[in-house]
């Protein structure tokens, strides 16, 4: 699939699908709807084929086949049991036997809960508390700048925790501290917003870079043809709609 024809065809398909989705920004139209529905099917198929070829085939089918041939009963069972648990998930759609899906779901939930608990507590709880109070271990040996930073982080973290502590009514001193916590949250959200702008614009840059590349001669001006086609459609649609409105009035 590396021939010149496949490259040019690929350019037309890629720029076409990209521009179909961007056409929604002008107004809703059949091209966008086609691309949108294609995306649903394509996205699902992509993940399904990944699952089949990268998980089920190498981790279920092939080990099972090999273990069966070698008489390795342990591996056979250790492969069949999770496969059966996985199949039980599908019974969710049959109301009479949907209770069978609980076996698959409870395994997943038990595993996820058991894994999340220590990891979250270590990394996102104790290490974060440690990071907040660590600078105070040798506070006076720090530079003035670091001292101020350490105090700001401590005050900020505590006041944000006050904001999220709903077991105590937010009034009086608690309300004042939690309101102060809101300011730190606003700083975090503002910083996130500023970076989100760059992130999204970077993605847009990637798409436009591709469209500009596919507008070149070596790709047979793919982008240009698609844009012209879309323009013709929208102009024709406007003319037809105006004629119909005139005819009605």
């Amino acid at each position, binding site marked *: 699939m590396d021939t010149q024809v496949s490259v040019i065809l690929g350019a037309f398909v890629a720029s076409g699908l990209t521009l179909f989705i961007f056409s929604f920004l002008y107004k809703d139209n059949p091209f966008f709807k086609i691309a949108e529905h294609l*995306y649903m099917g*394509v*996205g699902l198929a992509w993940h399904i*084929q990944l699952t089949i070829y990268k*998980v089920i085939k190498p981790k279920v089918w092939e080990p099972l086949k090999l273990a069966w041939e070698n008489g390795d009963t342990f591996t056979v069972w250790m492969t069949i049991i999770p496969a059966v648990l996985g199949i039980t998930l599908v019974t969710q759609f049959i109301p009479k036997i949907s209770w069978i899906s609980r*076996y698959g779901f409870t395994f997943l939930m038990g595993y996820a809960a058991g894994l999340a608990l220590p990891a979250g507590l270590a990394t996102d709880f104790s290490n974060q508390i440690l990071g907040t109070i660590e600078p105070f271990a040798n506070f006076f040996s720090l530079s003035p700048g670091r001292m101020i930073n350490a105090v700001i982080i401590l005050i900020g973290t505590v006041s944000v925790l006050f904001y*999220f502590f709903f077991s105590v009514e937010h009034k009086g001193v608690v309300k004042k501290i939690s309101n102060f916590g809101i300011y730190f949250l606003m700083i975090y959200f503002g*910083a996130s917003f500023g970076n989100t702008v760059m992130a999204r614009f970077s993605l847009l840059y*990637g798409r436009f870079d591709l469209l500009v590349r596919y507008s070149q001669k070596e790709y047979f001006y793919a982008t240009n043809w698609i844009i012209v086609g879309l323009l013709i459609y929208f102009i024709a649609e406007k003319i037809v709609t105006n004629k119909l409105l005139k005819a009605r009035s």
Partner: protein
Amino acid sequence: MNIIKKYIPLTIVFIFGIITLASYYVPHRASDEYLEWINKWENIVSAFALFLGMISLFYSHYKKIQRKVDGWGYSLFVYIGFFIIMGAAILSEGDISKEGKLTYLGWSFNNIYNPLSATMFSVLAFFIISTAYRSFKIKSFAAFLLFICGLILMIGNIPLGEIIWDKVFGWTKLTIGEIKDWIISVPSTAGRRGIMIGIAIGAAVTSLKIIFGIERGYMGKE
């Protein structure tokens, strides 16, 4: 019947939850081996969960086509897109490239899946600009603080912003990069840390409730 429908599943949650929890803290070869097997199991079980999504999507679009609702023709494209990729995957045996050459699946990934996926995400950029003009109303000090931090990050992220800052505020001897670094590493860290600790506590409590069978929403109707 209650034992099979309720108590055995709850026992499964408890056993796997406790053993997985313990394996994190027990520094023994057995823990590593257990984790290896349980990770393989999870991989296999969650792979089947994807088929749930497939059945759900196919069924809803099949109903649309059957009832010939408004726009039912577009539902056909869901199936078309699905079979194009699945066909390419079968022909390519799941490989994107073979011996340095792009396969049908690789071509489909580069020219169908990727443009669709990347463009869907990049459309958000247009809504950011629309929101910035129409909805970003600075009506309180908190909103003003949000705006100022966003402004500093945006200016600090672009070379033109650095030049503008140096020209207007160069006398402060502070570069926009230093201010941006400080915002991310000090006040923003404080805000984020509070959220992280809160989430960690919430996740720990929810995990314990799931392991001990107090939280059973995932099991469906009793």
